[in-house]
């Protein structure tokens, strides 16, 4: 187990170091930033859906809340960048606490409820009555803080921390209780696990990850409209990348992001008609042949030996 943890940590470190080095070989920092951001976001979805089974279709609500929390801290509270990022996370966590009654729902009801609440947050932020605070429909301009290089490296630091966090969760008894709760929360409570508290912790951690991503994204682009940080496709991308790579795994969301976001940037911008086709075909193949994601390919050998654990690969 320790050996596997060391391997996982080493792979994570190599991944982040590769992203540190990449700007020296590839000049489009925006694509690199977005790829790192989606890795973090899809890990946030992984934490919530992959481990506890809650599908956050409205995940972008936390992302947008983080972006606005960060901007408000900069513009109105005149916080320095680091404190503004922390404020963005705390603000998102507060939104998470307010929305926590959603956890009483399950399955499609939770997914739809979550999507609806994200649109409510969007509606509040974009409301012209709050123009003095949020900028309303005119958006937010924090271009005086524009620093893409710094925000890129902060995102990489967050990626490393999130990867280490996911590795810890997967190996800990806390993570074990989360995976078990997904199957049968009553049975897990019979082991003395505080199911409600654990669910809440994961919900808030996942919200905080999205909020931090949103805050760093706001810093990176420095000018945005409500529609750009509450764009549902941001959350959907994170979900699809996670599912494609492998839900509940450590590296599935990373692999999913590299492959799908890579394809998106290779052919999605220049020839969007082929991109849609390629995406569609890939997703059909995934659903039909690899419902547990690309990483489940590596687990088939074990299943053949009856040594199972197929449903939740460890890497």
């Amino acid at each position, binding site marked *: 187990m320790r050996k596997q943890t060391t391997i996982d940590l080493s792979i994570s470190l190599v991944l982040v170091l590769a992203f540190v080095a990449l700007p020296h070989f590839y000049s489009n920092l925006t694509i690199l930033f977005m790829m790192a951001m989606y890795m973090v976001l899809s890990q946030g979805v992984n934490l919530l859906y992959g481990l506890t089974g809650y599908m956050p279709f409205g995940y972008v609500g936390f992302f947008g809340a983080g972006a606005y929390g960060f901007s408000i801290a900069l513009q109105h509270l005149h916080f320095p960048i680091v404190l503004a990022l922390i404020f963005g996370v705390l603000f998102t966590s507060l939104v998470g606490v307010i929305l926590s009654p959603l956890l009483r729902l399950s399955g499609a009801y939770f997914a739809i409820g979550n999507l609806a609440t994200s649109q409510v947050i969007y509606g509040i932020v974009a409301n012209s009555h709050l123009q003095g605070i949020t900028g309303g429909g005119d958006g937010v301009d924090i271009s005086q803080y524009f620093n893409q290089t710094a925000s890129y490296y902060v995102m990489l630091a967050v990626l490393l921390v999130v990867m280490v966090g996911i590795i810890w969760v997967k190996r800990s008894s806390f993570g*074990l209780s989360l995976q*078990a709760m997904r199957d049968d929360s009553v049975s897990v*409570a*019979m082991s*003395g*696990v*505080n199911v409600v508290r654990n669910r809440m912790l994961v919900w808030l951690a996942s919200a905080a990850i999205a909020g931090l991503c949103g805050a760093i994204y706001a810093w990176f682009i420095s000018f945005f409209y409500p529609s750009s940080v509450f764009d549902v496709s941001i959350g959907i991308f994170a979900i699809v990348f996670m599912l494609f790579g492998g839900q509940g795994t450590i590296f599935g969301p990373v692999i999913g992001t590299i492959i799908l976001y890579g394809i998106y940037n290779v052919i999605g911008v220049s020839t969007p008609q082929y991109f849609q086709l390629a995406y569609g075909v890939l997703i059909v193949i995934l659903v039909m042949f690899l419902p547990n994601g690309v990483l489940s390919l590596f687990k088939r050998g074990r299943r053949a030996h009856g040594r199972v654990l197929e*449903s939740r690969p460890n890497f």
Partner: protein
Amino acid sequence: MSEILSIQSLSSGYEGMQVLNRVSLSVDQGVTAVLLGANGAGKTTLLKSTLGIISPMSGEVFIDGNNVTKDKPEAKIRKGIAYFSEFGVLPNLSIHENLKLGGFFLHHSDLKDKVAYMYEKFPDLKEKRKELAGSLSGGQRKMLGMARALISQPKLVLMDEPSAGLSPLFVNQVISLVKEFKKEFGSAFLIAEQNVKFLDIADHVFVLDGGEITFTGTVAELQESDAISKAYFGVH
């Protein structure tokens, strides 16, 4: 001998339908008590209400003299109660993970020793420790559920029909394990059963009929009584 469990005037049920009517019983430390009753008598409801899986309509539950009626199930488990039922096994976790989860609130080093001890008691589980619990047979799953419930060496074990669906061989194994745990750790057991075979290990017997306790006493006293024939056959 002091009481580990005391249930006083407990009424409970589901969504307005009352199943238990002012049930009172107590179990002393280190005692094996068997709760006999036919299908629908309210045995499972009584155990679930005791643990708090179902909120009682009225009445009180005391553990070690402390009123725990409003405590959540996980809080009661942490106070040394274990529950063995159809909830016993998580099929998508390995056998080893199921056992580890059973001792979730134990200290890491303590858990390691106790997992090793359970493998001694259940050598079949040790052989298959890496396999998913869902791949086990019904009897083996029951054994794993029992191992999961007993791993923390609880003061009181609530067992809900442990013999259901088991062959006579497995039933004898369950009975032997109850005896061993009682002897080695002084655990008390409240076993809800229909199978009278469990009377062999009962220090105390309760008969539950139509949501009410109709008999309380020893096995010898039960043999003198017509409580079982009333409960099982409606014979008066």
